[in-house]
């Protein structure tokens, strides 16, 4: 256990403590894992109204160069996504790949005029910045933004809360980005999140972060939500947690992320390949993979957590997979999990068994997400 004095603090640290958060070390930061109501109530509140999350530990990076065309084409050398085709004011999900076709990190990237705004995972951000500085065209400026907080407001009431502060938010659909003025504060907002709900991720200067968060919390529908509920919300939404559900040894086909690789970057596309590991990923897109990430729904009440081995028989048989994320889904009202299974066992409805404390417990391969997405289209 590292000394807590080594931990970095986000601009909202004092506010978390004031709100009674239980602070834990996470990716080098002291972060709120829960507030007084606890994970279950925080989760349910987010799905019923709106929750505010501090995600300032995540990396924010701006790429700029002589033109959008140049920036986008250069970024395409690191990701298998269509970057060039992104319209101004739009955001996309993507990932850095490595030479063996694995996923080095997953990310969101948005076009803001001629620049690319990239949000990456906290644990990977240093490596990601090095990767971009090393591999992008030398004239592209890679600016890590360290003086801005990142706040998410998520839930069915999020749209109304933000629109009441800046009516321009009403015109934003899922994955749109725009500059808004919230409580007198200039912010960069995207209509997106990590919960499966409608909502916003809001980049705000560190000086204004606390004021804005207090303004959001002043709304009767809004409560502070910790990382505990963030994890159960994203699990029910079927969203990957980097380092668990996907990693450097998982290729995007195995990770069931082929939807995030646009046609133009695939074999036969105008800008096919040209990203690390394309020689592995492009053929895999055609031929499939030997294992696949799927939803897993235990039939009993016992949660099946990360690391639980999955068998093809109630006794004997073979290990055919493993849970990569699992726990209790407060909205589903029972245990939910994600993991990898051999492709021949990956069909929805397949009966399998997870070994928990030496006992084989029944589960079924389930469709993701567990809770239907509630985005503003």
């Amino acid at each position, binding site marked *: 256990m590292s000394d807590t004095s080594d931990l970095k603090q986000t601009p909202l640290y004092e506010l978390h403590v004031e709100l009674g958060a239980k602070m834990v070390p996470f990716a080098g930061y002291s972060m709120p894992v*829960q507030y007084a109501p606890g994970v279950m109530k925080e989760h349910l509140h987010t799905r019923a109204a709106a929750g505010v999350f501090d995600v300032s530990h995540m990396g924010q990076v701006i790429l700029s160069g002589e033109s959008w065309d140049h920036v986008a084409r250069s970024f395409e050398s690191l990701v298998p996504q269509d970057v060039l085709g992104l319209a101004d004011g739009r955001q996309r999900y993507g990932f850095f790949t490595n030479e063996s076709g694995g996923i080095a990190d997953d990310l969101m990237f948005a076009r803001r005029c001629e620049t690319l705004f990239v949000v990456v995972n906290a644990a990977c951000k240093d490596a990601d910045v090095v990767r971009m500085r090393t591999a992008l065209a030398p004239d592209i400026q890679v600016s890590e933004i360290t003086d801005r907080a990142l706040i998410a407001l998520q839930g069915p009431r999020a749209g109304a809360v933000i629109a009441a502060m800046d009516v321009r938010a009403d015109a934003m659909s899922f994955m749109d980005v725009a500059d808004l003025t919230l409580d007198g504060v200039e912010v960069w907002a995207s209509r997106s999140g990590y919960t499966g709900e409608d909502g916003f991720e809001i980049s705000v200067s560190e000086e204004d972060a606390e004021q804005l968060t207090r303004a959001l919390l002043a709304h009767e529908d809004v409560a502070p939500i910790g990382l505990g509920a963030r994890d159960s919300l994203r699990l029910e939404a079927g969203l990957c947690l980097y380092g668990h559900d996907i990693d450097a040894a998982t290729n995007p086909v195995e990770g069931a992320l082929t939807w995030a690789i646009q046609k133009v970057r695939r074999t036969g596309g105008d800008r096919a390949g040209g990203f690390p590991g394309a020689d592995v990923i492009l053929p895999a897109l055609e031929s499939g993979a030997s294992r696949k990430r799927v939803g897993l729904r235990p039939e009993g009440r016992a949660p099946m957590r990360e690391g639980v081995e999955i068998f093809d028989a109630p006794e004997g048989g073979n290990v055919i997979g493993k849970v990569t994320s699992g726990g209790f889904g407060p909205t589903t009202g029972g245990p939910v999990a994600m993991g990898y299974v051999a492709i021949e066992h990956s069909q929805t409805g397949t009966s399998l068994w997870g070994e928990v404390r030496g006992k084989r417990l029944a589960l079924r391969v389930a469709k993701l997400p567990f809770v239907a997405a509630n985005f503003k289209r």
Partner: protein
Amino acid sequence: MKFTEEHEWLREEDGEMVVGITIHAAEQLGDVVFVELPDEGTTVSKDDEVVVIESVKAASDILAPVDGEITEVNAALTDNPAMVNDDPQGEAWFFKMTVSDPSQMDEFMDEAGYQKFIR
């Protein structure tokens, strides 16, 4: 009521011990979502893992506080694990057991001792 360093409480009832976890332990665990109870009639030794309790955060074990036999379990917990958070030192007892060696009870704390222990 007696308390253990493992955050269990024991209450004597008809010559047996009723066992549960403390309010402090329930708060630390967070929302309990799953409880697996032992079979009635199981002979246990002190520190055997007899109950599995899972919260939204993690799985934990509850250990047998003394040697003895499990005589009854609180089956209501299986269907309603949230009872553990609602009333840990009352309705949400886990099991009743006989005590083979009463001297094993000597080390347990009283309420005041336990409150001091968790401070």
